[in-house]
């Protein structure tokens, strides 16, 4: 059964926590809207994959983690970096290719890194980062720490060999890793049903005798509940979990792609927006008398200010100097 909290009673003592989840999702939403606008103006180059619509997955999942835990994500990872606490300034500056970017302007949108928070990318080859997550989990087990690795990927990555090789080893070796599949229904323009023989991603866990979870990926509290359980299994017993979070991407695959067209209809997009994760939590909180209009406006204003500050910083920040072309190829 899909984990959901739509009918659950909220805990008034958790008000600040709920507000923070809402703030983080709004931060990602506004950040991505502004990144899209900057891309349209030619200020951001390359491929730029926006996370709008999927905010609940990164925010709900990353809120469960401790400082020593590691996050490894794919190329739609602006939201994950922000949820982990990398500053909006350094993420926006990286999209602008500036020196103050979290990867010093050398990575760009697809390669955000922040070693100070164990945010280890930002990887651009579909599925290729999944084994890396087993590797950081292997290192945690090797060193007998209780650190957990969380790995995010899309549903299109589950048909590639690296996914299967990694899940097998993670289960075989009991590695403390949580695999979170963000099922947004489309690998670029190919619907899940046109690419996968098995449509329930979570069912793939049984091939590897691994725990599985299915969660409404538009429900941040449900994501938080499910990932909390999975992180505990990893931390306490070294047991990996495959989580399928059913979500939806509002924008095109990247900024270079159409929002709808041959592969999905405008009607479908509008229908999915009815599940909006931010509106969902906002109305849950309003219904429970844990948020009023002023409170929401205050959160929104703070987030808008933060993103505006990030844009200003990125605009004004310096490009990497020419000599940086040849630095950081090799480590001493």
């Amino acid at each position, binding site marked *: 059964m899909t984990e959901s909290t739509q009918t659950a009673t909220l805990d008034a003592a958790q008000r600040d926590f709920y507000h923070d989840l809402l703030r983080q999702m709004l931060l990602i939403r506004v950040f991505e809207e502004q990144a899209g606008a900057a891309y349209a103006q030619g200020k951001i180059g390359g491929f730029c994959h926006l996370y709008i619509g999927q905010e609940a997955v990164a925010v709900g999942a990353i809120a469960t983690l401790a400082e020593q835990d590691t996050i490894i994500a794919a190329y739609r990872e602006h939201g994950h970096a922000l949820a982990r606490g990398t500053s909006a300034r350094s993420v926006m500056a990286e999209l602008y290719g500036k020196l103050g970017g979290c990867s010093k302007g050398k990575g760009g949108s697809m390669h955000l890194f922040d070693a100070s928070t164990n945010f280890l990318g930002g990887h651009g080859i579909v599925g290729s980062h999944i084994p890396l997550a087993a*590797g*950081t989990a292997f290192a945690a087990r090797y060193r007998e720490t209780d650190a957990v690795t969380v790995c995010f990927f899309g549903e299109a990555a589950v048909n590639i060999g690296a996914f299967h090789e990694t899940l097998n*080893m993670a289960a075989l070796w009991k590695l403390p890793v949580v695999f979170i599949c963000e099922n947004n229904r489309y690998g670029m323009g190919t619907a899940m049903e046109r690419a996968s023989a098995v449509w329930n991603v979570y069912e793939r866990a049984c091939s590897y005798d691994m725990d599985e979870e299915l969660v409404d990926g538009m429900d941040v509290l449900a994501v938080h509940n499910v990932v909390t359980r999975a992180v505990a299994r990893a931390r306490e017993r070294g047991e990996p979990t495959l989580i399928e979070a059913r979500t939806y991407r509002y924008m095109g695959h990247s900024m270079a792609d159409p929002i709808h067209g041959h592969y999905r209809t405008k009607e479908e997009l509008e229908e999915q927006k009815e599940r909006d994760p931010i509106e969902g939590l906002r109305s849950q909180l309003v219904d429970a008398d844990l948020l009023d209009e002023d409170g929401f406006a205050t959160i929104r204003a703070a987030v808008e200010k933060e993103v505006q500050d990030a844009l200003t910083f990125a605009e004004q920040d310096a490009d990497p100097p020419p000599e940086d072309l040849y630095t950081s190829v090799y480590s001493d």
Partner: protein
Amino acid sequence: MGVITYRDALNQALRDEMERDPDVFLMGEEVGVYQGAYKVSRGLLEAFGDRRVVDTPIAELGFAGVGVGAAMAGLRPIIEFMTWNFALLAIDQVVNSAAKMYYMSGGQVPVPVVFRGPGGSALQLAAQHSQAFESWYAHIPGLKVVAPATPYDAKGLLKSSIRNNNPVVFIEGEMLYNTKGEVPEGEYTVPLGKADIKREGTDVTVVCHSKTVSVALKAAERLAEEMDVSTEVVDLRTIRPLDVDTITQSITKTNRCVIVEEGWPFCGVGAQVVDDVQRLAFDHLDAPLIRVTGADVPMPYNKHLERAAKPNPDKVIAAVRQVAYLD
């Protein structure tokens, strides 16, 4: 100083480095219980246990990626490929993950991993098991590529590779494992990026690496004895970074150069050497450089055809005579 095999020299290096640094571990197919497909890891499971000597499923891409991830987290993995032919399944991790991580993270995430295993042809293993991939990996900025020819170099270079902070592609000669040479028992390393003159000479420089070093040395012996030609044999040892200085210094003395490698000719290691030499030592050359390479075909099974496909002393001698205008 003992006389041991190339295989045992590598084993000593692994053992020494695992004793020296608890962050070093070995992972790959058959490295533990089976004692290594080529017995390079013999005895290591018993010495270090299965936490540090890790048998894997046959999943090259997966366990290579586990190695890269473990290195990103600060360990120093040694990932053994049963052969470099099978490592093609993992090349995405070597090229897209290991080689790029430090740069694209803006210098935040080094990847101190060694990928090692046998490369090149052996005896009648046919097309899919007889390939020298040095030039493939040497093409990639971010990787170091090492290919030792002797037991002494194998031990010293593997120790340096494990201590290096970068991803190192360490290609062993499949036909070299049983070859013997003098190897000190105590601590020593051979630096990466330094070629070695395996035989001094004055008439022609022969640049080679890995298995072709013995081919070049046999040719040099006959050239000296039968033709009164003095050959200098330069063993590259490291392909990337390439020790261009040692090559050009030798050519400054001999004014002639032959390059020998087991790989295919197109975009091979020798092609890079030719480019460096023509730019840096053009005025010292008395003849065009000539390359002796593997034949530009998939390796055939038939032993006569296979022999015809590989570099051998006769081919090197013919090339040396050509650059020395002896024919």
